[in-house]
């Protein structure tokens, strides 16, 4: 292990170290862009096969830089960015999500005729935005990070220009996203007005005092921030953009949105509400309670009626936002660790499931309706098995990481006295069994239809298969060796401890 190195963020130069992974990835993104431009002969040519690998190499490099962060110790504690293990853990999730998205995009982009180097570069920049979001300890930086991420994603959603649904999704996402950014910004302004600073470590200690003075501005600011972040994590009732955007977007982008983007928004959520606003937990937890309850119930019920797997997974990812909100609400009793752990498992299983959707697609259609999966398990034994693993894990069945994750959230919720949410979580999971199981029924128990000419699934490249297989294996390994990621998540969450005495994380277990 590296020796601990002190970082003093009041010195500008130390930010170079504190932002190492982001800087590496940004520079690498430019490199990929340049290579792409000079590699191909003219504009209309698809980009070279080297580009995605180069992008993955960039993510790996950023991962190494990220691991390097473990060796730093932030001594000032008041900088714009946090250097703690929480960020490192979250960064690994973002990088993983970006890498999975690129792996599964390899077959997809060629098939849809949208193989442009910009795709991979935009994924890299979206990941940069996510990492900054998890890192920011200042609301202004958080906003900029949010925009870096969101703008990249807006473009990615509409990347398939010729497909009207892609453009529709992009427009919807852009309009509502801009709307939610405005909420977020207004929330920052009000919070600044109440607390006198945008720095979370400064806001934190002032919260309790401001509340005693009956500061409505702070409450309004917090509420607006919650709305803004609620949009990004797609919590009910701020979820309406999600199904259309997820459905319209190219599937690899959907995978990235439902994992990385959501994770980043949640990381920001925990920094703002879990740490800075922990002094007003009893206020925001009331809104959070209803957000979580509604999200779990509504999303699971709507998911029941979906005939398209892509939409079903979109609603399933909304439902999972509800589970993660439960973890967030119980952040004072190991919920933060449960949150990180679940986020890891969730990223693996959701990205993997979208990967399988891509693998079944053909050049003509995406083939994501339930009927398209009749007999899938027999045609592609390995992909079918992997898909089953992902679905069972999403449902929270034993033998998969999803089970341990849900158990962890349940435990945290019960320890925080959130019994109603725990009961809703269990009931919601029960409902979700039905629609996850239905896919398995179709895959293995219904005879395949005769395929129309030209609609046969395209060949799946080895890299995509490898990524899906690795994700499935990881979901299983997380179950059997739960102890290791659990410990890692707990240590990472413990590093969130704010410097204030009133911090909720003081009793972290």
């Amino acid at each position: 292990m590296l020796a601990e190195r002190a970082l003093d963020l009041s010195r500008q130069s130390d930010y170079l170290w504190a932002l190492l992974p982001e800087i590496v990835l940004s520079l690498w993104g430019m490199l990929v862009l340049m290579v792409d431009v000079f590699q191909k002969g003219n504009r209309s040519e698809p980009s070279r096969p080297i580009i995605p690998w180069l992008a993955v190499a960039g993510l790996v490099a950023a991962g190494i830089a990220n691991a390097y962060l473990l060796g730093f110790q932030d001594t000032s504690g008041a900088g714009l960015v946090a250097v703690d293990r929480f960020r490192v853990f979250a960064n690994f999730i973002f990088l993983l999500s970006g890498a999975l998205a690129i792996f599964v995009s390899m077959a997809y982009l060629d098939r849809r005729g949208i193989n442009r180097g910009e795709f991979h570069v935009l994924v890299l920049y979206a990941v940069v935005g996510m990492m900054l979001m998890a890192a920011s300890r200042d609301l202004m930086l958080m906003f900029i990070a949010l925009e870096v991420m969101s703008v990249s994603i807006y473009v990615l959603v509409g990347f398939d220009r010729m497909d009207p649904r892609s453009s529709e999704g992009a427009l919807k996402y852009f309009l509502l996203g801009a709307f939610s950014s405005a909420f977020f910004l207004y929330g920052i302004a009000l919070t600044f007005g109440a607390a006198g600073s945008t720095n979370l470590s400064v806001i934190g200690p002032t919260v309790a005092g401001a509340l005693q003075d009956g500061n409505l501005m702070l409450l309004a600011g917090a509420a607006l921030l919650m709305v803004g972040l609620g949009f990004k994590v797609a919590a009910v009732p701020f979820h309406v953009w999600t199904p259309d955007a997820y459905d319209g977007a190219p599937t690899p982008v959907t995978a990235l949105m439902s994992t990385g983007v959501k994770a980043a928004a949640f990381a920001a959520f925990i920094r703002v509400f879990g740490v800075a606003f922990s002094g007003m937990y009893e206020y925001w937890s009331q809104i959070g309670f209803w957000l979580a309850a509604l999200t779990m119930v509504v999303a699971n019920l709507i998911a029941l009626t979906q005939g398209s797997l892509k939409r079903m997974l979109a609603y399933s990812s909304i439902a999972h936002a509800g589970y993660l909100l439960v973890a967030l609400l119980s952040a004072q009793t190991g919920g933060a660790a449960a949150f990180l752990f679940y986020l890891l498992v969730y990223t693996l299983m959701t990205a993997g499931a979208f990967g399988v959707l891509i693998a079944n697609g053909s050049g003509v259609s995406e083939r994501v309706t339930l009927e398209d999966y009749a007999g899938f398990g027999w045609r592609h034994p390995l992909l079918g098995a992997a898909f089953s693993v992902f679905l069972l894990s999403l449902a929270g069945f034993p033998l998969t990481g999803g089970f341990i994750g849900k158990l962890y959230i349940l435990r945290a919720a019960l320890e925080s006295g959130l019994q109603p949410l725990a009961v809703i979580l269990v009931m919601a999971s029960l409902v979700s069994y039905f629609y996850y199981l239905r896919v398995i029924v179709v895959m293995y128990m219904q005879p395949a239809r005769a395929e129309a000419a030209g609609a046969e699934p395209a060949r799946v490249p080895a890299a995509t298969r490898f990524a899906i297989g690795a994700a499935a294996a990881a979901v299983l390994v997380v179950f059997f060796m739960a102890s290791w990621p659990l410990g890692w998540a707990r240590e990472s969450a413990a590093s969130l401890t704010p410097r204030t005495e009133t911090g909720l994380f003081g009793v972290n277990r």
Partner: protein
Amino acid sequence: MQAFYDSHWVLTFLIFFPLAGAAAAFLAGDRGARQVALWVGIVEFLVSLPLFWTFDRTGSCPQPTVRGGMSEQVSQAMQNCVAAPWIPEWGVHYRLGMDGISLFMVLLTTLLLPLMVLGSWTYIRERQKWFYAMLLALTTGVVGVFVALDMLLFYVFWEIMLIPMYFLIGIWGGRERIYAAVKFFLYTTVGSLLMLVAILYLFFKAQALFGTPTFSYFDFQQLAAGNLLSLREQGLLFLGFALAFAIKVPVFPFHTWLPHAHVQAPTAGSVILAGVLLKMGTYGFIRFALPLFPLAAASDTTIRLALVLGIVGIIYAAMVAAVQPNAKKLVAYTSVAHLGFVILGIFAFNLQGLQGALLVMIGHGLSTPMLFFLLGMLYERRHSYEIEDFGGMAASIPVFATVLVFAAMASIALPGTAGFVSEFLVLVGTFRSYPIAALIAATGVIFAAFYMLPMVQQTVFNALRSPANRDIPDLNGREIALLAPLVALILLIGVYPKPFLDRMDPAARRLADGMENARATYVAMSASMGNVASAPR
């Protein structure tokens, strides 16, 4: 060798060998899968068999338990124990152990495994490697359920065996297989999730009181034993556990998934479902629901409910069985009736009742699989389960007819078969505690003849009218080989049950004594509160 049978390795082997075998069967491809599965099954059985003799009636082993953060070794009446940390920060251990109750459930499972492979030999023609892999994987879960002593580990085994069973019904089942499979799955999961909530509650309770996170069965037992759970808490937790087990048994009125699952499942699926899976429910009562919450289990409400539902199950299932045109469905309903006896025996809270219940579990685990095997063989020849399609089999296939008559007699508990001894013990036990209940339940034995004999008559003895029933081959060597051990065991237990009763005696006695005490405590408590009749749960 002795060391192997003294350590947990024998149990670990019995759990994971079928899983490895599943992989091997899968890799062997469609051609070789059944051979591999057969050998795996035979090895599994042969390895498990010596347990019958190496089992030590007085055996015990130390178990680490936590008291106030301190870990100490407490001797428990289990053997072949292990407690290896799995998720230490939650106190989850790979904790196994076996007593006289688990012993026979494990042996029953391992005995049925090779027989199921033989029974599917020609029955299953499609996707054979998948089928045998699923069958073996299922065995892993089932054996695990019977020896797991960590509540989370138990829950994991309890849940994972649903997946292979779900596939067995859903892929190789009959016409309405998907409906049956989904119904089976959802029904059982509803119960399991409530049980999970109850387990988590116990976990928090234990963590708060003992200062260390633990999922150990023994630690959870300390909660009720040390009066650390209020009567109300016990009642609710008992409800959570009992519902999961009652659905699995299935106790009337939670039995509606069973006929569908049985009728649609392939032969091997019906066999393991009736032979072992249903016993997981009654085993759950005996191992968990009763010892963990003795006061709740011994309350008036629970006992009344259990007796009424048990008796209703016996009578109602018998009447429904009597009018079934479908032979497989008929046998499915007989399971509900037989397991009603088990419930009666368990809730009689005395040694005879409990031993009888355990013996019914074994006897039913031999006779009902036999009936399902026979019906499967008939189906392979006639492609029908409808009773009216059959007739005069005694003339065309005499060996089959003989065995079917024997199986039917075993099922209606004729003296000399395992069913008689066991149901007799149950009735004696019940009579000692609740004479009226025993009297009503005894009519169930007559009802059994009422539904089983017409089926046998129609199938075996009626006139040989249909030519389709004439030109069919009699049982072949493989089929006789797989039925023979079942016949032998049914007769052995029927004539000389002592070796079996001896081995389950200490465990049964301990539970019966515990429950008798709990009942006395409960009565005393209610009396001190002044109203025995409407005592709170």
